[in-house]
Protein backbone atom coordinates (compact mmCIF):
# COMPACT_ATOMS: atom_id res chain seq x y z
CA UNK A 1 0.00 0.00 0.00
CA UNK A 2 1.23 3.49 -0.86
CA UNK A 3 0.12 6.05 1.70
CA UNK A 4 0.34 9.82 1.38
CA UNK A 5 -0.33 11.37 4.78
CA UNK A 6 -0.94 15.04 5.44
CA UNK A 7 1.44 16.13 2.65
CA UNK A 8 2.36 19.80 2.73
CA UNK A 9 4.39 21.72 0.20
CA UNK A 10 5.23 25.39 -0.23
CA UNK A 11 6.71 27.10 -3.27
CA UNK A 12 8.07 30.36 -1.89
CA UNK A 13 5.17 31.86 0.03
CA UNK A 14 2.54 29.88 -1.82
CA UNK A 15 1.22 26.83 0.02
CA UNK A 16 0.49 24.43 -2.84
CA UNK A 17 -0.36 21.35 -0.79
CA UNK A 18 -2.14 21.97 2.52
CA UNK A 19 -2.25 18.49 3.96
CA UNK A 20 -3.10 16.01 1.22
CA UNK A 21 -3.83 12.44 2.28
CA UNK A 22 -4.84 9.43 0.22
CA UNK A 23 -3.98 5.78 -0.23
CA UNK A 24 -3.21 3.80 -3.37
CA UNK A 25 -3.50 0.04 -3.36
CA UNK A 26 -1.74 -2.58 -5.44
CA UNK A 27 -3.89 -3.79 -8.32
CA UNK A 28 -5.87 -0.55 -8.45
CA UNK A 29 -5.69 2.47 -10.73
CA UNK A 30 -5.85 5.66 -8.69
CA UNK A 31 -6.45 8.87 -10.60
CA UNK A 32 -5.46 12.29 -9.21
CA UNK A 33 -7.70 14.93 -10.72
CA UNK A 34 -7.58 18.69 -10.44
CA UNK A 35 -7.07 21.83 -12.43
CA UNK A 36 -3.61 22.95 -13.54
CA UNK A 37 -1.41 24.08 -10.66
CA UNK A 38 -3.33 22.18 -8.01
CA UNK A 39 -0.20 20.15 -7.13
CA UNK A 40 -0.74 16.78 -8.86
CA UNK A 41 2.78 16.63 -10.31
CA UNK A 42 4.21 17.90 -7.03
CA UNK A 43 2.56 14.97 -5.22
CA UNK A 44 4.16 12.47 -7.62
CA UNK A 45 7.54 14.24 -7.38
CA UNK A 46 7.26 14.20 -3.59
CA UNK A 47 6.49 10.46 -3.58
CA UNK A 48 9.68 9.88 -5.61
CA UNK A 49 11.71 12.26 -3.38
CA UNK A 50 12.28 14.52 -6.36
CA UNK A 51 11.16 17.60 -4.45
CA UNK A 52 11.49 18.58 -0.81
CA UNK A 53 8.30 18.55 1.25
CA UNK A 54 7.36 20.84 4.12
CA UNK A 55 5.38 18.32 6.09
CA UNK A 56 3.66 14.97 6.08
CA UNK A 57 4.70 11.43 5.37
CA UNK A 58 4.85 9.11 2.39
CA UNK A 59 4.93 5.41 3.17
CA UNK A 60 5.37 2.41 0.92
CA UNK A 61 4.12 -0.72 2.66
CA UNK A 62 4.44 1.13 5.96
CA UNK A 63 8.02 2.30 5.39
CA UNK A 64 9.50 5.60 4.27
CA UNK A 65 10.64 5.91 0.67
CA UNK A 66 14.37 5.19 0.35
CA UNK A 67 16.74 4.40 -2.52
CA UNK A 68 15.61 0.77 -2.27
CA UNK A 69 12.03 1.86 -2.96
CA UNK A 70 13.03 2.68 -6.56
CA UNK A 71 13.07 -1.07 -7.20
CA UNK A 72 9.40 -1.23 -6.11
CA UNK A 73 8.00 1.97 -7.49
CA UNK A 74 8.59 3.72 -10.80
CA UNK A 75 7.69 7.16 -12.10
CA UNK A 76 6.86 8.06 -15.68
CA UNK A 77 6.99 11.86 -15.66
CA UNK A 78 5.57 14.26 -18.23
CA UNK A 79 9.12 14.99 -19.42
CA UNK A 80 11.66 13.25 -21.60
CA UNK A 81 13.91 11.44 -19.17
CA UNK A 82 16.45 10.04 -21.59
CA UNK A 83 19.26 11.89 -23.27
CA UNK A 84 18.42 13.02 -26.80
CA UNK A 85 21.42 11.37 -28.46
CA UNK A 86 20.60 8.00 -26.91
CA UNK A 87 19.14 5.24 -29.02
CA UNK A 88 16.11 3.49 -27.51
CA UNK A 89 18.28 0.37 -27.13
CA UNK A 90 20.88 2.41 -25.21
CA UNK A 91 18.21 3.81 -22.90
CA UNK A 92 17.05 0.23 -22.27
CA UNK A 93 20.65 -0.81 -21.58
CA UNK A 94 20.99 2.05 -19.08
CA UNK A 95 17.93 0.77 -17.21
CA UNK A 96 19.25 -2.78 -17.32
CA UNK A 97 22.58 -1.61 -15.88
CA UNK A 98 21.10 0.10 -12.86
CA UNK A 99 17.83 -1.67 -11.99
CA UNK A 100 17.57 -5.23 -10.69
CA UNK A 101 13.84 -5.06 -11.41
CA UNK A 102 14.37 -4.36 -15.13
CA UNK A 103 12.56 -7.02 -17.17
CA UNK A 104 14.24 -7.33 -20.56
CA UNK A 105 11.56 -9.67 -21.89
CA UNK A 106 8.79 -7.25 -21.07
CA UNK A 107 10.81 -4.37 -22.51
CA UNK A 108 11.08 -6.20 -25.83
CA UNK A 109 7.37 -6.96 -25.66
CA UNK A 110 6.59 -3.28 -25.06
CA UNK A 111 8.87 -2.31 -27.92
CA UNK A 112 6.72 -4.45 -30.23
CA UNK A 113 3.49 -3.30 -28.60
CA UNK A 114 4.32 0.37 -29.25
CA UNK A 115 5.86 -0.44 -32.65
CA UNK A 116 9.11 1.33 -31.76
CA UNK A 117 12.49 0.73 -33.40
CA UNK A 118 15.25 0.09 -30.85
CA UNK A 119 17.83 1.73 -33.14
CA UNK A 120 16.01 5.05 -33.34
CA UNK A 121 17.53 7.96 -31.50
CA UNK A 122 15.28 9.66 -28.95
CA UNK A 123 15.89 13.06 -30.58
CA UNK A 124 14.40 11.79 -33.84
CA UNK A 125 11.12 10.63 -32.29
CA UNK A 126 7.74 12.40 -32.39
CA UNK A 127 6.17 13.55 -29.12
CA UNK A 128 3.86 10.54 -29.12
CA UNK A 129 6.70 8.08 -29.63
CA UNK A 130 8.82 9.81 -26.99
CA UNK A 131 5.94 9.37 -24.54
CA UNK A 132 5.82 5.70 -25.52
CA UNK A 133 9.58 5.35 -24.81
CA UNK A 134 8.99 6.91 -21.38
CA UNK A 135 6.19 4.41 -20.77
CA UNK A 136 8.32 1.53 -22.01
CA UNK A 137 11.14 2.40 -19.60
CA UNK A 138 8.73 2.65 -16.69
CA UNK A 139 6.52 -0.33 -17.44
CA UNK A 140 9.33 -2.75 -18.23
CA UNK A 141 10.30 -2.77 -14.58
CA UNK A 142 8.96 -5.42 -12.23
CA UNK A 143 7.68 -2.96 -9.66
CA UNK A 144 4.63 -2.86 -7.39
CA UNK A 145 3.60 0.72 -8.21
CA UNK A 146 3.70 2.86 -11.33
CA UNK A 147 3.25 6.63 -11.14
CA UNK A 148 2.24 8.33 -14.38
CA UNK A 149 2.12 12.07 -14.86
CA UNK A 150 -0.11 13.18 -17.73
CA UNK A 151 0.74 10.26 -20.03
CA UNK A 152 -1.69 11.57 -22.69
CA UNK A 153 -0.56 15.19 -22.68
CA UNK A 154 -0.09 16.67 -26.17
CA UNK A 155 -0.37 13.33 -27.90
CA UNK A 156 -2.49 12.49 -30.95
CA UNK A 157 -5.64 10.38 -30.68
CA UNK A 158 -4.10 7.17 -32.04
CA UNK A 159 -1.11 7.31 -29.71
CA UNK A 160 -3.49 8.03 -26.80
CA UNK A 161 -5.53 4.96 -27.71
CA UNK A 162 -2.39 2.85 -27.88
CA UNK A 163 -1.21 4.09 -24.49
CA UNK A 164 -4.66 3.53 -22.95
CA UNK A 165 -4.57 0.00 -24.36
CA UNK A 166 -1.66 -0.74 -22.00
CA UNK A 167 -4.09 -0.63 -19.07
CA UNK A 168 -6.17 -3.47 -20.47
CA UNK A 169 -3.26 -5.79 -21.22
CA UNK A 170 -1.08 -8.00 -19.06
CA UNK A 171 1.62 -5.31 -19.31
CA UNK A 172 0.22 -3.59 -16.23
CA UNK A 173 -0.72 -6.86 -14.48
CA UNK A 174 -1.68 -6.39 -10.85
CA UNK A 175 0.41 -3.32 -10.20
CA UNK A 176 -0.84 -0.26 -8.40
CA UNK A 177 -1.07 2.78 -10.66
CA UNK A 178 -1.31 6.43 -9.67
CA UNK A 179 -2.08 8.55 -12.70
CA UNK A 180 -2.70 12.23 -13.23
CA UNK A 181 -4.55 13.23 -16.37
CA UNK A 182 -6.86 15.82 -17.85
CA UNK A 183 -8.01 13.32 -20.51
CA UNK A 184 -10.38 11.46 -18.18
CA UNK A 185 -12.49 10.12 -21.04
CA UNK A 186 -9.58 8.00 -22.32
CA UNK A 187 -9.34 5.92 -19.18
CA UNK A 188 -12.50 6.64 -17.19
CA UNK A 189 -13.74 3.06 -17.51
CA UNK A 190 -10.42 1.75 -16.17
CA UNK A 191 -10.09 3.89 -13.03
CA UNK A 192 -10.77 2.22 -9.67
CA UNK A 193 -10.19 5.10 -7.32
CA UNK A 194 -10.40 8.87 -7.76
CA UNK A 195 -8.85 11.66 -5.68
CA UNK A 196 -10.26 15.09 -6.50
CA UNK A 197 -7.91 17.92 -5.53
CA UNK A 198 -8.54 21.60 -5.19
CA UNK A 199 -6.84 24.47 -3.44
CA UNK A 200 -4.15 22.23 -1.98
CA UNK A 201 -6.57 19.78 -0.37
CA UNK A 202 -8.43 16.58 -1.20
CA UNK A 203 -12.00 17.65 -2.02
CA UNK A 204 -13.37 14.17 -2.46
CA UNK A 205 -12.04 10.65 -2.66
CA UNK A 206 -14.17 7.82 -3.99
CA UNK A 207 -14.23 4.37 -5.55
CA UNK A 208 -15.60 4.62 -9.10
CA UNK A 209 -17.39 1.28 -8.89
CA UNK A 210 -19.36 2.38 -5.82
CA UNK A 211 -20.37 5.71 -7.34
CA UNK A 212 -21.35 4.03 -10.59
CA UNK A 213 -23.43 1.31 -8.92
CA UNK A 214 -24.94 3.22 -6.01
CA UNK A 215 -25.43 6.66 -7.51
CA UNK A 216 -25.36 5.89 -11.23
CA UNK A 217 -22.77 8.59 -11.82
CA UNK A 218 -19.63 8.67 -13.92
CA UNK A 219 -16.33 10.21 -12.79
CA UNK A 220 -17.06 13.26 -14.96
CA UNK A 221 -20.50 13.63 -13.29
CA UNK A 222 -18.91 13.66 -9.85
CA UNK A 223 -16.25 16.11 -11.03
CA UNK A 224 -18.94 18.49 -12.31
CA UNK A 225 -20.84 18.16 -9.05
CA UNK A 226 -17.79 18.83 -6.88
CA UNK A 227 -16.00 21.51 -8.89
CA UNK A 228 -19.11 23.45 -9.93
CA UNK A 229 -20.63 23.43 -6.47
Amino acid at each position, binding site marked *: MLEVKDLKKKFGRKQVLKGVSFTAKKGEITCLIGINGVGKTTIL*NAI*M*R*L*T*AINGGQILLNGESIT*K*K*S*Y*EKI*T*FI*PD*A*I*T*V*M*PHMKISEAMQ*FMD*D*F*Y*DCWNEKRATELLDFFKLNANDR*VSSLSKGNTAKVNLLLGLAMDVDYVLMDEPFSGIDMFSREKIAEVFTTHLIEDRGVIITTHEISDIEHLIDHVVLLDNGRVLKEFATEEVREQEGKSVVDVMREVYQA
Partner: protein
Amino acid sequence: MSNYLKLVNFELSRFMKLYVVMICFTIIMQITGVIVKSKSYMGLANEEMYKNMMSKTEFINQHGEFSFYWLTQSIWFMGPIALCGAALLFYMFLIWYRDWLGKNTFIYRLLMIPTARMNVYLAKATTIFLMVIGMVALQLALFPVEAVVMQWMVPVDFRLDLNILQTIFSLNFAAVLFPLTPTEFFLWYGAGAMSILVIFTAILFERSFRWKGILIGVVYIALSVGLLMLPVLIDEFFMYGYLYPIELVGITIVMGLLVTGMSLFTSHYLLNKKVTV
Protein backbone atom coordinates in the same frame (compact mmCIF):
# COMPACT_ATOMS: atom_id res chain seq x y z
CA MET B 1 30.51 0.63 -5.39
CA SER B 2 29.47 -1.10 -8.57
CA ASN B 3 26.82 1.54 -9.32
CA TYR B 4 29.39 4.26 -8.65
CA LEU B 5 31.79 2.74 -11.18
CA LYS B 6 28.97 2.29 -13.71
CA LEU B 7 28.06 5.94 -13.25
CA VAL B 8 31.68 7.06 -13.69
CA ASN B 9 31.88 5.02 -16.89
CA PHE B 10 28.57 6.51 -18.04
CA GLU B 11 29.68 10.09 -17.33
CA LEU B 12 33.03 9.52 -19.04
CA SER B 13 31.33 8.17 -22.15
CA ARG B 14 28.99 11.20 -22.21
CA PHE B 15 31.98 13.56 -22.33
CA MET B 16 34.18 11.40 -24.54
CA LYS B 17 33.40 13.06 -27.90
CA LEU B 18 34.21 16.53 -26.62
CA TYR B 19 37.25 15.15 -24.80
CA VAL B 20 38.60 13.51 -27.96
CA VAL B 21 38.14 16.86 -29.76
CA MET B 22 40.11 18.56 -26.95
CA ILE B 23 42.88 15.96 -27.20
CA CYS B 24 43.11 16.25 -31.01
CA PHE B 25 43.06 20.04 -30.79
CA THR B 26 45.92 20.03 -28.25
CA ILE B 27 48.02 17.59 -30.28
CA ILE B 28 47.49 19.41 -33.58
CA MET B 29 48.07 22.89 -32.12
CA GLN B 30 51.22 21.96 -30.22
CA ILE B 31 52.82 19.92 -33.01
CA THR B 32 51.96 22.69 -35.49
CA GLY B 33 53.45 25.11 -32.97
CA VAL B 34 56.73 23.17 -32.88
CA ILE B 35 56.90 23.20 -36.69
CA VAL B 36 55.97 26.89 -37.03
CA LYS B 37 58.33 28.05 -34.28
CA SER B 38 61.20 25.86 -35.52
CA LYS B 39 60.73 27.10 -39.08
CA SER B 40 60.58 30.69 -37.94
CA TYR B 41 63.78 30.24 -35.89
CA MET B 42 65.59 28.57 -38.78
CA GLY B 43 64.24 31.24 -41.17
CA LEU B 44 65.70 33.89 -38.91
CA ALA B 45 69.01 31.99 -38.70
CA ASN B 46 69.21 31.71 -42.51
CA GLU B 47 68.42 35.36 -42.97
CA GLU B 48 70.99 36.50 -40.42
CA MET B 49 73.72 34.16 -41.69
CA TYR B 50 73.24 34.46 -45.48
CA LYS B 51 71.89 37.96 -45.87
CA ASN B 52 73.62 39.70 -42.97
CA MET B 53 76.72 37.50 -43.04
CA MET B 54 76.44 36.62 -39.36
CA SER B 55 78.36 33.58 -38.14
CA LYS B 56 76.60 30.67 -36.47
CA THR B 57 78.23 31.51 -33.14
CA GLU B 58 77.24 35.17 -33.43
CA PHE B 59 73.69 34.21 -34.25
CA ILE B 60 73.46 31.86 -31.27
CA ASN B 61 75.05 34.44 -28.99
CA GLN B 62 72.55 37.05 -30.14
CA HIS B 63 69.36 34.96 -30.35
CA GLY B 64 70.11 31.99 -28.15
CA GLU B 65 69.74 28.30 -28.98
CA PHE B 66 66.34 27.00 -29.93
CA SER B 67 64.92 25.05 -27.03
CA PHE B 68 61.54 23.90 -25.84
CA TYR B 69 61.31 27.12 -23.90
CA TRP B 70 60.65 28.99 -27.18
CA LEU B 71 57.60 26.86 -27.79
CA THR B 72 56.25 26.97 -24.25
CA GLN B 73 56.10 30.76 -24.36
CA SER B 74 53.96 30.77 -27.52
CA ILE B 75 50.21 30.74 -28.07
CA TRP B 76 50.61 27.43 -29.91
CA PHE B 77 51.55 25.76 -26.63
CA MET B 78 49.67 27.80 -24.04
CA GLY B 79 46.53 28.28 -26.17
CA PRO B 80 45.31 24.67 -26.11
CA ILE B 81 46.19 24.32 -22.41
CA ALA B 82 44.20 27.45 -21.56
CA LEU B 83 41.30 26.38 -23.78
CA CYS B 84 41.19 22.87 -22.31
CA GLY B 85 41.34 24.36 -18.81
CA ALA B 86 38.47 26.68 -19.63
CA ALA B 87 36.50 23.81 -21.22
CA LEU B 88 36.95 21.65 -18.13
CA LEU B 89 35.94 24.53 -15.87
CA PHE B 90 32.84 25.10 -17.99
CA TYR B 91 32.12 21.37 -17.94
CA MET B 92 32.03 21.43 -14.13
CA PHE B 93 28.80 23.39 -14.47
CA LEU B 94 27.56 21.70 -17.63
CA ILE B 95 27.88 18.23 -16.09
CA TRP B 96 24.99 19.16 -13.74
CA TYR B 97 22.97 21.71 -15.66
CA ARG B 98 22.59 19.72 -18.88
CA ASP B 99 20.75 17.07 -16.83
CA TRP B 100 18.29 19.64 -15.51
CA LEU B 101 17.83 22.16 -18.26
CA GLY B 102 16.70 21.75 -21.82
CA LYS B 103 14.11 19.53 -23.43
CA ASN B 104 15.40 16.29 -21.96
CA THR B 105 15.48 16.20 -18.18
CA PHE B 106 17.80 13.30 -17.50
CA ILE B 107 18.06 14.29 -13.84
CA TYR B 108 14.79 12.38 -13.22
CA ARG B 109 16.55 9.16 -14.22
CA LEU B 110 19.73 9.92 -12.29
CA LEU B 111 17.92 10.73 -9.04
CA MET B 112 15.66 7.68 -9.32
CA ILE B 113 18.48 5.16 -9.71
CA PRO B 114 18.25 2.74 -6.77
CA THR B 115 21.59 3.78 -5.35
CA ALA B 116 22.84 6.45 -2.95
CA ARG B 117 22.50 9.83 -4.66
CA MET B 118 26.01 10.64 -3.51
CA ASN B 119 27.20 8.09 -6.08
CA VAL B 120 25.84 10.36 -8.82
CA TYR B 121 27.62 13.33 -7.23
CA LEU B 122 30.91 11.49 -6.71
CA ALA B 123 30.78 9.99 -10.21
CA LYS B 124 30.49 13.47 -11.71
CA ALA B 125 33.35 14.76 -9.54
CA THR B 126 35.50 11.73 -10.41
CA THR B 127 34.83 12.29 -14.12
CA ILE B 128 36.11 15.87 -13.95
CA PHE B 129 39.13 14.77 -11.93
CA LEU B 130 39.98 11.97 -14.37
CA MET B 131 39.60 14.34 -17.30
CA VAL B 132 42.12 16.74 -15.73
CA ILE B 133 44.56 13.91 -14.96
CA GLY B 134 44.09 12.65 -18.53
CA MET B 135 44.94 16.03 -20.03
CA VAL B 136 48.04 16.34 -17.84
CA ALA B 137 49.12 12.83 -18.85
CA LEU B 138 48.57 13.75 -22.50
CA GLN B 139 50.80 16.78 -22.08
CA LEU B 140 53.51 14.67 -20.46
CA ALA B 141 53.29 12.18 -23.34
CA LEU B 142 53.42 15.01 -25.88
CA PHE B 143 56.68 16.50 -24.58
CA PRO B 144 58.97 13.76 -26.01
CA VAL B 145 57.01 13.68 -29.29
CA GLU B 146 57.36 17.43 -29.65
CA ALA B 147 61.06 17.15 -28.78
CA VAL B 148 61.54 14.64 -31.63
CA VAL B 149 59.72 16.94 -34.09
CA MET B 150 61.92 19.80 -32.91
CA GLN B 151 65.03 17.67 -33.48
CA TRP B 152 63.88 16.95 -37.05
CA MET B 153 63.36 20.63 -37.76
CA VAL B 154 66.34 22.27 -36.04
CA PRO B 155 69.93 21.09 -36.56
CA VAL B 156 71.78 20.03 -33.46
CA ASP B 157 74.15 23.06 -33.59
CA PHE B 158 71.23 25.44 -33.19
CA ARG B 159 69.24 23.76 -30.50
CA LEU B 160 69.44 23.04 -26.82
CA ASP B 161 67.89 19.66 -25.98
CA LEU B 162 66.04 19.55 -22.70
CA ASN B 163 64.84 16.39 -20.99
CA ILE B 164 61.27 16.19 -19.64
CA LEU B 165 62.24 17.44 -16.19
CA GLN B 166 64.10 20.43 -17.60
CA THR B 167 61.15 21.14 -19.88
CA ILE B 168 58.75 21.06 -16.95
CA PHE B 169 61.01 23.37 -14.93
CA SER B 170 60.94 25.86 -17.81
CA LEU B 171 57.15 26.25 -17.43
CA ASN B 172 55.69 28.85 -15.09
CA PHE B 173 52.80 26.68 -13.93
CA ALA B 174 54.85 23.47 -13.70
CA ALA B 175 54.70 23.10 -9.94
CA VAL B 176 50.89 22.89 -10.03
CA LEU B 177 50.30 20.76 -13.13
CA PHE B 178 53.32 18.50 -12.91
CA PRO B 179 54.17 17.98 -9.24
CA LEU B 180 57.52 16.31 -8.76
CA THR B 181 56.92 14.65 -5.39
CA PRO B 182 53.97 12.63 -4.04
CA THR B 183 53.45 15.29 -1.34
CA GLU B 184 53.16 18.03 -3.96
CA PHE B 185 50.80 15.82 -5.96
CA PHE B 186 48.48 15.30 -2.99
CA LEU B 187 48.63 18.97 -2.08
CA TRP B 188 47.86 20.42 -5.51
CA TYR B 189 45.52 17.74 -6.80
CA GLY B 190 43.85 17.52 -3.38
CA ALA B 191 43.19 21.25 -3.60
CA GLY B 192 41.81 20.69 -7.12
CA ALA B 193 39.49 17.91 -5.94
CA MET B 194 38.34 20.10 -3.05
CA SER B 195 37.56 22.93 -5.48
CA ILE B 196 35.41 20.59 -7.60
CA LEU B 197 33.43 19.54 -4.51
CA VAL B 198 32.97 23.16 -3.34
CA ILE B 199 31.67 24.22 -6.78
CA PHE B 200 29.38 21.16 -6.97
CA THR B 201 27.97 22.04 -3.55
CA ALA B 202 27.33 25.61 -4.70
CA ILE B 203 25.53 24.23 -7.79
CA LEU B 204 23.37 22.02 -5.58
CA PHE B 205 22.48 25.05 -3.44
CA GLU B 206 21.27 26.76 -6.60
CA ARG B 207 19.35 23.65 -7.72
CA SER B 208 17.72 23.41 -4.29
CA PHE B 209 16.83 27.03 -3.60
CA ARG B 210 17.04 28.56 -7.12
CA TRP B 211 17.53 32.38 -6.91
CA LYS B 212 18.24 32.35 -3.17
CA GLY B 213 20.52 29.38 -3.85
CA ILE B 214 22.78 31.44 -6.13
CA LEU B 215 23.47 33.80 -3.24
CA ILE B 216 23.95 30.92 -0.79
CA GLY B 217 26.27 29.21 -3.29
CA VAL B 218 28.43 32.32 -3.71
CA VAL B 219 28.60 32.77 0.07
CA TYR B 220 29.49 29.08 0.43
CA ILE B 221 32.37 29.39 -2.05
CA ALA B 222 33.62 32.55 -0.28
CA LEU B 223 33.35 30.82 3.09
CA SER B 224 35.30 27.80 1.82
CA VAL B 225 38.07 29.96 0.36
CA GLY B 226 38.12 31.99 3.60
CA LEU B 227 38.42 28.87 5.76
CA LEU B 228 41.22 27.50 3.60
CA MET B 229 43.12 30.78 3.67
CA LEU B 230 42.46 31.44 7.36
CA PRO B 231 45.80 30.09 8.72
CA VAL B 232 47.77 32.06 6.11
CA LEU B 233 45.77 35.23 6.79
CA ILE B 234 46.16 34.91 10.56
CA ASP B 235 49.88 34.28 10.18
CA GLU B 236 50.27 37.23 7.81
CA PHE B 237 48.22 39.85 9.62
CA PHE B 238 47.85 38.88 13.29
CA MET B 239 50.62 36.51 14.36
CA TYR B 240 53.38 37.17 11.86
CA GLY B 241 56.04 34.47 11.97
CA TYR B 242 54.45 32.73 14.96
CA LEU B 243 54.11 29.44 13.09
CA TYR B 244 56.83 27.48 11.31
CA PRO B 245 56.12 27.05 7.57
CA ILE B 246 55.54 23.31 8.04
CA GLU B 247 52.98 24.03 10.78
CA LEU B 248 51.24 26.50 8.49
CA VAL B 249 51.06 23.92 5.70
CA GLY B 250 49.77 21.32 8.17
CA ILE B 251 46.99 23.60 9.46
CA THR B 252 46.07 24.58 5.88
CA ILE B 253 45.78 20.88 4.99
CA VAL B 254 43.50 20.35 8.01
CA MET B 255 41.36 23.30 6.86
CA GLY B 256 41.25 21.81 3.34
CA LEU B 257 40.06 18.49 4.74
CA LEU B 258 37.47 20.36 6.81
CA VAL B 259 36.16 22.17 3.70
CA THR B 260 36.09 18.88 1.76
CA GLY B 261 34.17 17.16 4.55
CA MET B 262 31.79 20.11 4.86
CA SER B 263 31.14 20.02 1.09
CA LEU B 264 30.45 16.28 1.11
CA PHE B 265 28.15 16.53 4.12
CA THR B 266 26.24 19.54 2.73
CA SER B 267 25.91 17.96 -0.73
CA HIS B 268 24.62 14.72 0.81
CA TYR B 269 21.99 16.68 2.71
CA LEU B 270 20.96 18.78 -0.31
CA LEU B 271 20.77 15.81 -2.68
CA ASN B 272 18.64 13.79 -0.29
CA LYS B 273 16.48 16.44 1.33
CA LYS B 274 16.34 19.62 -0.72
CA VAL B 275 17.11 19.17 -4.38
CA THR B 276 14.21 19.62 -6.80
CA VAL B 277 13.90 18.32 -10.36
